[in-house]
């Protein structure tokens, strides 16, 4: 045990233990008295009255008193094995056996207990269920144990190792040694499940529930675990020496038999009932508890104490919805039809009409597509229709499809009101009713109850899906027989574009307006419709109606007029009148919400829409709908027949039979819905990136049971979406997200009435292995560290151990060279793009690329400043201390690819070859082995990963691979001392002279790359870079022409900056330096006036500053500074006349004049320079 942990515990422990010895000290006596009579004669100091100002004593005494109480407990539980001897515990926060119980357990078993934690080292163990993050950090180094440790130790009769009950784990980073079956294995520390969860699972309530289970006679998991433990206990019969204890210095009590027998006594005597349950709970190790199935209360109908009441009227008013649901589900029949049935979802989808229809439609669509494909293969391609051509669209629809088909089997019902529904129960919904029923006012979707009121003689027929399917197939056969483009709308309606046929019949191109051709076309359309109706009638025995119009909208609108069993052609000249008279509800795609919105802006009929401006519509309905309504009102519909709408979402939703009694059921149901969604995603060959959970919650004012049996009734609908980072259709991912969204709603599970999951932002599933679309980096094992034999690490290539390389044969050296095909050497793509710039990119291809991609590629290519520079993707060698001979660190010269060398720029080549020059014993930096790529190989050269760490310390040479280029410019220039006098400094420097250009070179290291690095490494790299730049600074010339661009340069190459004008031979550019120079100049010539040529030099410089450097401020500042210097010189001369000779003062006034003249000339220069730039003059101070 670390001494750190025990610094204070020792004293605390001693203090506490001293109290446990019965025959010591007066306080013991006092305690006995305390027990007998707490109000009398407390002899201990702690029971004295506090003195004035003795507040500090208060806490101390309080603690002593508490310890006295503990001593009492200890004395009264002498029979307990003192398993906690040496333990000083402190309880932090809420624990499941409560603080009091833990206190009693610990103290009763010989432990010490601290109510107040003076310092962390005062206690040996901190007992907590969970810690706040702050405390977690605070107690990281201390023994923080779960309460289960206490309970279990008591149960086991010995001090269990606290380690397996730790609350604060060592973190993911630390590996944990596991001892299983004598084998020691190191594994990543797995995060134990959240302590809250552990607690709730094994809480009093859960155990209560379990005990209910036990009573109900179901096989109990706790019983199992009890047995489990019993077997464990048997295995635990081991010699006392081997008992794992953290406290070697405290003899462990190994009276196993005694504890076994003692145990029940302890329980009964000292452990309150709650804790018994707790112990029961903790009897098995917690990990087993966690893996137990969640205890779910499913009141069995046989054992349920609740009355089997079905009648909502008999319900208590204060009942919660969960309770109500539980009661409802207690009816086995209801239970089978609701989510209480595990098979519910399958059953639901088996029986749901809507589901049936939708899956049917999907099948139909697939059939239609294949049929259309066949057709297009046999048919010659239809003539392309240009814009502005008259079109003829048929909208074909069955009249009351379900009813009509069902009636065929019951000829006796012909002409009578017939409806199709699940049953005649008042709660069933009418799916379809025939026209004679509609005469009674019946509508599809009506409740059976009200329908029967309206039409008592209504005949109700059940669904007959096989017949519908058959009819639908025949219908589509007839539709497909028509020569035209077919689009299926649903199983019983279709759109057909017969433009081609009609135009042929009319004999026109559809553009010109000739009376005869239009007539012919319209007649042809009518004829087609007639034929179609006849053929469907013949095949299926049912009537279809056909609406004909110039577009889909008009066809649909015309169909309303055509029904029942008729056809109607909406002719172009009648369109506006016809549509205008319709109510907006009659337009396709206008539901009640849209029509309500339209009503708000005063629209009831379609013609009303025409009075509104498009802007008004878009502002109140949204841009798309508004524009659509505007078009619709004018009979315009741009959509085309046969234009399949791409599926935008896949969803699974259930809003019938949703009755949960607890949250777990709801979550399980969501998970199974997600499984269904997963199936559908797979069916549709898509995956999605956005998951939406739709939840219908019983409206607060809605009754517990809606009108429709197990229906959803009046609901509030909630939606929540989450963007998944990657498109997926994995059911576990979807399920997890959906469940967490459901949790985040925090709705009462009993109030849930409908649940749906929807996947949007779909992406097609690529054929092939069904995996995530995201590329995954493959982290291969670190190269070559373990297998030096097979694959020589480049580190070793240049290692001195390898000895003389020249002696190696070429074959061997090539074998030793790191293989590029070795996957372990594959560099990471660091540039953040999936496109890797090939070394030799085809410029044409490059030019074809979009600009942004190109520039990324270019910058990527640039991150390897020299594309053909030999670069090894291997980690860099460590800088070696002792200078070894250069050849030892290079591959033999013979290994260099001559082609590569030839391709190198001259200077680089020279440099590389220089390293092989025996004349050069040492070199500035260790170089990585230049690697010779095999000539002509199509290998994509990727940016290397230069930051493979070697031996812990981040390499400062991480970017060393650019040193080859850098060292080009680190030519050591001879330095000349600038021992120039002020006079010399003023000499005009007419020669073209350079100056320093301190540019921070951001291009050398990609910023993305830098950003990806850890902070410390980045700093080091930047420092390295700065140092390199420092060496790299070179003088610039004014007249330097742009150097011809090397062909491999890809980024925007900026021409060299025009040289900054400099002042004097010292190349002064900075304002402080200039001021200093002027200062010196002025003080040197203050008494005799400046030389004209110096003034001219400064003027020239200032002029250039303004015109070339474009820094007016600098020039003006210099002039102002000069002016101030002159002014300062004048002032003392005037105000405090120095005792000078008249001759001196005369000369002084002379030089004042000279300086003033100089200043005026400088100012004039500045103004004229400004004028040259087209600027007004400046004011000088």
């Amino acid at each position, binding site marked *: 045990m670390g001494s750190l942990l025990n610094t204070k515990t020792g004293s605390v422990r001693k203090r506490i233990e001293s109290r446990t010895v019965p025959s010591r000290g007066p306080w013991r006596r006092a305690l006995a008295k305390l027990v007998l009579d707490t109000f009398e004669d407390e002899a201990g100091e702690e029971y004295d009255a506090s003195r004035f100002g003795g507040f500090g004593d208060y806490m101390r005494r309080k603690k002593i008193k508490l310890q006295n109480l503990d001593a009492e407990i200890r004395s009264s539980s002498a029979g307990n094995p003192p398993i906690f001897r040496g333990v000083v515990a402190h309880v932090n926060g809420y624990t499941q056996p409560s603080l009091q119980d833990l206190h009693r357990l610990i103290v009763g078993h010989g432990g010490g207990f601290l109510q107040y934690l003076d310092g962390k080292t005062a206690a040996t163990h901190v007992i907590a269920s969970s810690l706040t993050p702050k405390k977690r950090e605070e107690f990281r180094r201390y023994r923080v144990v779960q309460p289960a440790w206490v309970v279990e130790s008591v149960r086991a009769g010995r001090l269990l190792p606290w380690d397996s009950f730790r609350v604060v784990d060592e973190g993911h980073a630390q590996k944990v040694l596991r001892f299983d079956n004598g084998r020691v294995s190191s594994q990543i520390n797995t995060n134990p499940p959240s302590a809250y969860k552990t607690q709730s699972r094994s809480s009093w309530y859960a155990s209560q529930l379990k005990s209910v289970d036990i009573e109900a006679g179901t096989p109990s998991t706790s019983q199992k675990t009890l047995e489990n433990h019993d077997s464990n206990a048997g295995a635990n019969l081991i010699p006392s020496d081997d008992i794992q204890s953290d406290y070697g210095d405290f003899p462990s009590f190994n009276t196993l038999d005694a504890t076994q027998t003692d145990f029940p006594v302890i329980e009964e005597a000292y452990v309150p009932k709650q804790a018994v349950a707790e112990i029961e709970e903790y009897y098995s190790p917690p990990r087993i508890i966690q893996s137990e199935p969640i205890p779910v209360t499913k009141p069995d109908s046989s054992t349920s104490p609740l009355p089997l009441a079905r009648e909502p009227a008999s319900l208590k008013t204060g009942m919660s919805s969960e309770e109500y649901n539980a009661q409802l589900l207690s009816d086995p029949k209801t239970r089978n039809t609701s989510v209480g049935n595990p098979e519910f979802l399958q059953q639901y989808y088996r029986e749901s009409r809507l589901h049936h229809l939708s899956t049917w439609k999907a099948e139909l669509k697939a059939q239609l597509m294949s049929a259309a494909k066949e057709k297009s293969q046999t048919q010659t391609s239809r003539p392309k229709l240009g814009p502005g051509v008259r079109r003829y669209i048929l909208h074909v629809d069955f009249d009351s499809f379900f009813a009509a088909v069902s009636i065929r089997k019951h000829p006796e019902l012909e002409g009578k009101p017939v409806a199709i529904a699940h049953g005649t129960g008042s709660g069933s919904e009418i799916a379809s009713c025939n026209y004679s029923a509609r005469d009674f006012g019946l509508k599809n979707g009506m409740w059976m109850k009200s329908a029967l009121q309206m039409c008592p003689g209504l005949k109700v027929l059940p669904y007959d899906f096989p017949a519908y399917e058959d009819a639908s197939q025949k219908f589509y056969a007839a539709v497909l027989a028509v020569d035209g483009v077919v689009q299926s709308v649903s199983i019983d309606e279709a759109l057909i574009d017969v433009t081609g046929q009609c135009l042929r019949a009319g004999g026109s191109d559809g553009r010109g307006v000739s009376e005869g051709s239009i007539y012919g076309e319209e007649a042809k359309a009518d004829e087609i419709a007639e034929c179609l109706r006849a053929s469907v009638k013949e095949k299926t025995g049912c009537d279809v109606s056909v609406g004909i119009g110039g577009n889909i909208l008009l066809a649909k609108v015309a169909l309303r007029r055509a029904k029942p069993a008729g056809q109607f052609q909406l002719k172009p000249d009648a369109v506006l009148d016809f549509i205008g008279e319709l109510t907006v509800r009659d337009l396709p795609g206008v539901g009640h919400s849209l029509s309500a919105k339209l009503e708000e802006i005063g629209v009831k009929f379609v013609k009303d829409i025409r009075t509104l401006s498009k802007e008004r519509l878009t502002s109140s309905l949204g841009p798309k709908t508004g524009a659509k309504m505007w078009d619709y009102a004018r009979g315009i519909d741009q959509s085309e027949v046969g234009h399949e709408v791409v599926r935008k979402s896949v969803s699974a939703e259930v809003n019938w039979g949703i009755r949960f009694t607890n949250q777990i059921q709801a979550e399980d149901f969501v998970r199974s819905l997600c499984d269904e969604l997963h199936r559908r995603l797979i069916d549709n060959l898509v995956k999605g990136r956005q998951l939406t959970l739709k939840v219908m919650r019983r409206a607060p004012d809605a009754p517990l049971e809606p009108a429709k049996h197990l229906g959803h009734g009046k609901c509030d609908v909630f939606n929540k979406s989450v963007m998944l980072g990657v498109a997926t259709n994995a059911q576990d991912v979807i399920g997890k997200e959906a469940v967490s969204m459901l949790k985040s709603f925090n709705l009462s599970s009993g109030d849930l009435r409908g649940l749906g999951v929807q996947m949007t932002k779909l992406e097609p599933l690529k054929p092939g292995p069904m995996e995530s679309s995201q590329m995954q980096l493959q982290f291969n094992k670190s190269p070559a560290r373990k297998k030096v034999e097979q694959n020589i690490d480049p580190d070793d290539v240049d290692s001195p151990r390898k000895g003389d390389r020249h002696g190696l044969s070429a074959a061997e050296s090539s074998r030793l060279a790191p293989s590029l095909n070795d996957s372990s050497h594959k560099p990471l793509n660091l540039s953040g793009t999936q496109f890797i710039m090939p070394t030799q990119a085809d410029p044409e291809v490059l030019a074809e690329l979009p*600009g*942004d991609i*190109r*520039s*990324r590629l270019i*910058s990527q290519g*640039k991150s390897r400043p020299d594309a053909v520079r030999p670069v090894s993707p291997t980690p860099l060698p460590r800088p070696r201390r002792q200078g070894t001979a250069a050849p030892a660190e290079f591959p033999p010269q013979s290994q260099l690819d001559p082609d590569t060398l030839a391709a190198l720029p001259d200077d680089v080549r020279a440099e590389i070859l220089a390293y092989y020059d025996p004349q050069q014993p040492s070199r500035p930096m260790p170089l990585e082995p230049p690697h010779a790529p095999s000539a002509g190989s199509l290998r994509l050269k990727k940016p290397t990963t230069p930051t493979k760490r070697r031996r812990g310390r981040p390499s400062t040479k991480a970017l060393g691979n650019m040193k080859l280029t850098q060292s080009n410019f680190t*030519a050591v*220039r001879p*330095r*000349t001392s*600038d021992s120039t006098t002020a006079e010399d400094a003023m000499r005009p420097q007419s020669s073209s*002279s*350079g100056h*320093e*250009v*301190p*540019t*921070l070179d*951001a*291009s050398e290291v990609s*910023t993305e790359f*830098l950003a990806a690095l850890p902070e410390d490494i980045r700093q080091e790299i930047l420092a390295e870079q*700065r140092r390199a*730049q*420092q060496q790299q*600074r*070179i*003088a*610039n*010339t004014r007249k*330097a*022409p742009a*150097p011809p661009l090397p062909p491999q340069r*890809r*980024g*925007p*190459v*900026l021409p*060299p*900056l025009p040289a900054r004008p400099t002042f004097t*031979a*010292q*190349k002064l550019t900075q304002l402080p*330096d200039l001021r200093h120079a002027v200062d010196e100049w002025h003080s040197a010539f203050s008494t005799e006036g400046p030389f004209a040529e110096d003034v001219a030099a400064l003027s020239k410089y200032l002029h250039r500053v303004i015109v070339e*450097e*474009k*820094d*007016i*401020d600098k*020039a*003006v500042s210099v002039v102002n500074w000069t002016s101030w210097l002159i002014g300062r010189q004048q002032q003392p001369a005037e105000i405090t006349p120095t005792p000078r000779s008249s001759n001196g003062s005369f000369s002084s006034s002379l030089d004042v004049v000279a300086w003033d003249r100089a200043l005026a000339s400088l100012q004039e220069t500045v103004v004229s320079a*400004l004028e040259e*730039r*087209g*600027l*007004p*003059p*400046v*004011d000088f101070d």
Partner: protein
Amino acid sequence: MTTFSAPVTEPKPLPSNQSALAASFTDFLTVSIHQILFLRSVYPRATFLPVRAYNYPVRQSRHPKVCDYINDAAIAVGTEILKGTITAVSIIISSLRTNQPLERYAFDLSGFPRVPVGEINATFEERKDDPSSSSKLGVNVSERGSAPPQTIDLEAQFRACLARLASACARLTPLPRDDEFSFTVCIEVREDALPPAGTTKEEQTWIVAEPGKVHLRSCTAPYSVSKAKSADDPQQQHQHLPPPPPKVSNGRAKTVPVRRVEAGELRLELWVEEARQKFNEPVD
């Protein structure tokens, strides 16, 4: 911009490509325009919010249309920078009464690099000095040169600019009291570049400016294009300008230098010009 603490952060890297450069500058331009409008009281001072930019206290107009205009102008300037045609941006404060420019805040951008449009996202190559000249000139690497190069903190540069701008504005002659003012953003393009004035209304981000309403003096570039706006009329005015205006006498017109920024490739100079008109001198 209103944060509560100013954590000392690493200086951000200097813009390393043309689009980053344009973004840095347009940000600065936006801040500057707001600040100029405040400093010159073009709009009532109460309509400005005290905010912080580049860790320097500045003011931002609260008027949504003013903000929109400034943002639009900055975006449009950014577009021109990316085209590489721009040489200067100026903000011209003009009198509403006489419709004459009074002050001009000029940002000289001729030091910006010119980069082909396709490579605006590519990192700049380091400006390579002519090696021949460097070898020729291996003399006089002064002591100063070997000192560690100061890392240029762009933010600090901008901050200094804003500070100097404030002091420069304080030195300006106050604008006439009995007048209201408007401002215009005006750009100058290179002589060889096409003026960005579009033909259709949608692409007409820039309009050719009237010389009298823009120029305090002639500018370096022949074409001056201005993004025009008057304070009361959010609609853009459309003006046309024939190439260079005649050289006019200076009168009392005056230049107040502000600052030059040199941070990597971002090289600009900022100065203020005051027009003769401000001093009620006749315009010839």
